């Protein structure tokens, strides 16, 4: 892993067209500004992992019969 030190207001350039700026620091929280082409998707890492996990979870599909039974029970 590349490790760099930056001050507030300083930036990094990744590739040709992604710019990451350190905007502010409050306690142990750092505020980043990211400028990137809209084709580049930027997410918080934990959200990315959560969505992947949810998609994997959706691959365990119940049968049609199970779905029908569930909705019947809920209507009661």
């Amino acid at each position: 892993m590349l490790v760099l030190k930056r001050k507030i207001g300083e930036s990094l350039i990744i590739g040709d067209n992604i710019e990451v700026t350190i905007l502010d620091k409050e306690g142990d929280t750092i505020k980043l500004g990211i400028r990137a082409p809209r084709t580049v998707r930027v997410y918080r890492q934990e959200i990315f992992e959560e969505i992947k996990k949810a998609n994997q979870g959706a691959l365990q599909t119940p049968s049609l019969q199970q779905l029908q039974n569930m909705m019947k029970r809920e209507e009661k």
Partner: protein
Amino acid sequence: MKIQTAMLGEVDVQEQDVVTFEPAMYGLDEYRRFTLLRPDETLPFAYLQSVEEAGVCLLVADPFVFRADYAFDLSEADLADLKQPAAEDLVIWVTVTAPDTLETATMNLLAPIVIHTKQQVARQIVLHEAPYATKTPLFPPKEG
């Protein structure tokens, strides 16, 4: 064309009912082309079945049936990626995880699947600023 499906055996699918995810759904990078199967239209569920791989089939739900107030805005970038859909040509589904029993199933309201039916393009959109979770109970616990 006839495809093999995870839940319904062999199914005949029309080419106009196949949607392409560009980019792919998260964690499903190898699979782009899917079709929605609704064997029982009275249910608020569908199977989002890969037309390329029978084993890849996601359970999805109509979020508005479970949360009537579910709402979000599509960004300009999302609209461009979805080829500028008219509102009436959009269909929204969310993935459902049912780990143990269906009663404890959760849906991912943070990353809905948005389909532009006329252009047959689809995207899984991440709602950065919306107050929704990836694990929202399908059925909120009953009181009492």
